């Protein structure tokens, strides 16, 4: 496979140093504790439902997580607290079409737009990003979508728009959220300059296919330099606001989940370490990279900020 590099990411920067042993090799050594080996990589036999997907400079020379794992190990608490729950529950309940996104707040041209219209501002492209969960596991996922900034600009945010707030669908029939003590719906937010960073992405697909319900169909945020919970799923509303918006995990446990939630190996979660991570499909933990390896693109956003305070 031809590997393309983003001009500002060198593979030497992102390829992990430690030698790791593949799961398959460990099966032999571990005997009874042999671990599952799943078919790796993304099968691309079927033609893409999206038609033509533009080649993207945002790629990695790291092995992508198996599609099976990426679509069956999910945190989507609206569908249950176990990792297997979303794949089991979401597809039967969530109706990803028709879908509208309401864009509101400090902008010149607010409106409720159909999903297809919403993402029409740019050609669909595939980006292979690392995904680092706050729980210290990670994946590498080929997303299909459009840059967030391009999608937002047409609504002409005003100078008062300092933050962007996102909201997940709030429909008890489609999302059985009663099972826990959260203040639903799921909410997330970005600072305006973070949202406009070229890395910020809106995904409508993965592995060349339409986004499965359990991964946040039909449209979700992907901000790869932040912990996974920032990448809000099944977005129905986007609001330009002046004040830092309230977000679900931050309001649930503010000392554990910050608003910024940048991947940072030097700032531990109060209850576990963040300096290493388990890449799904690998045996040995690998070191976690600052900003999940996207420092060149995003470190400037946080210049002068105390990242231990603004975690």
């Amino acid at each position: 496979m031809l590997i393309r590099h983003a001009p500002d990411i060198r593979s030497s920067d992102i390829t992990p140093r430690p030698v790791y042993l593949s799961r398959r090799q460990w099966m032999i050594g571990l005997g009874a504790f042999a671990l599952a080996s799943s078919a790796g990589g993304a099968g691309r036999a079927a033609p893409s439902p999206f038609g033509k997907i533009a080649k993207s400079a945002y790629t990695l020379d790291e092995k992508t997580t198996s599609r099976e794992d990426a679509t069956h190990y999910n945190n989507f608490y609206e569908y249950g607290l176990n990792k297997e729950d979303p794949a089991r529950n979401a597809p039967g309940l969530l109706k990803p079409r028709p879908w509208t996104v309401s864009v509101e707040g400090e902008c010149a041209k607010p409106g409720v737009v159909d999903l297809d219209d919403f993402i029409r501002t740019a050609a669909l492209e595939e980006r292979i990003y690392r995904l680092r969960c706050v729980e210290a596991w990670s994946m590498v996922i080929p997303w299909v979508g459009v840059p967030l900034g391009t999608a937002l600009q047409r609504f002409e945010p005003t100078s008062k728009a300092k933050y962007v707030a996102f909201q997940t669908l709030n429909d008890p029939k489609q999302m059985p959220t009663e099972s826990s003590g959260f203040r639903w719906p799921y909410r997330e937010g970005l600072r305006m300059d973070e949202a406009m960073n070229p890395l910020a992405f809106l995904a409508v697909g993965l592995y060349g296919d339409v986004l499965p319900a359990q991964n946040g169909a039909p449209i979700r945020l992907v901000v790869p330099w932040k912990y996974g919970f920032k990448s809000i799923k099944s977005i129905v509303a986007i609001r330009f606001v002046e004040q830092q918006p309230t977000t679900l995990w931050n309001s649930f446990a503010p000392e554990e989940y910050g608003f910024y939630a940048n991947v940072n190996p030097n700032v531990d979660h109060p209850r576990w370490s963040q300096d290493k991570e388990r890449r799904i499909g690998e045996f040995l933990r690998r070191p976690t990279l600052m900003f999940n390896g996207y420092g060149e693109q995003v470190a400037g956003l946080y210049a002068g900020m105390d990242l231990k305070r603004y975690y």
Partner: protein
Amino acid sequence: MAADGGGVDLGGRRSSRPAFRWRSGVRAGIHVLCLIPLAVLMAAGIAGDLGANPIEAVIRSLGDWALRLLVVALAVTPARRLTGWAGLASYRRMIGLWAFAYAALHFAAYVVLDQFFDWAAIGREIVKHKFITAGMLAFALLLPLAATSTSAMIRRLGGRRWQRLHRLVYVAGPLAAIHYIWMVKADALQPMVYFVLILGLLCYRGVVKSRAGGWMRK
């Protein structure tokens, strides 16, 4: 696994032959039952059925079974008192040892599969993260209990001292449940159930003890 003799009903004698045979049948049955979770886990591992994060699945399952068997072991004495079936006591020690076996496998899986002998990282985790601290402490407290589980050790220590030592489970049990409570992100219901069960079973003993005016009276 240590040999299990007559349980902790130290005064008890081997009764008539048919009863003895019946007891060893129950013993064998308990051993088989306690082995099933491990066998199921191993089979799932070999079949590749442990999901996307098999290491996490192994560690969680072993920890769950350690807690469950601990609850069962702690329930033996109250059950014996409630039912008046004195023979139950002879199965307590082996169930306790099985709880320890799962705890030991849980610990080993953490050291080998999760951290891969990175002792420095394990040390940091124990010091910095309270759920690891609680788990390690609970396991450490179980070690002397497991080590003194043989009939020979009971005889050597003497019944009273042995029982006093084994009251460490009053600390280890709740600690193990707290370890679980502190680990979870939001779904604290299941660990809370373990905590309440363990605490309830231990409190029951306290109540019985104070009522009877002494510990474990025959």
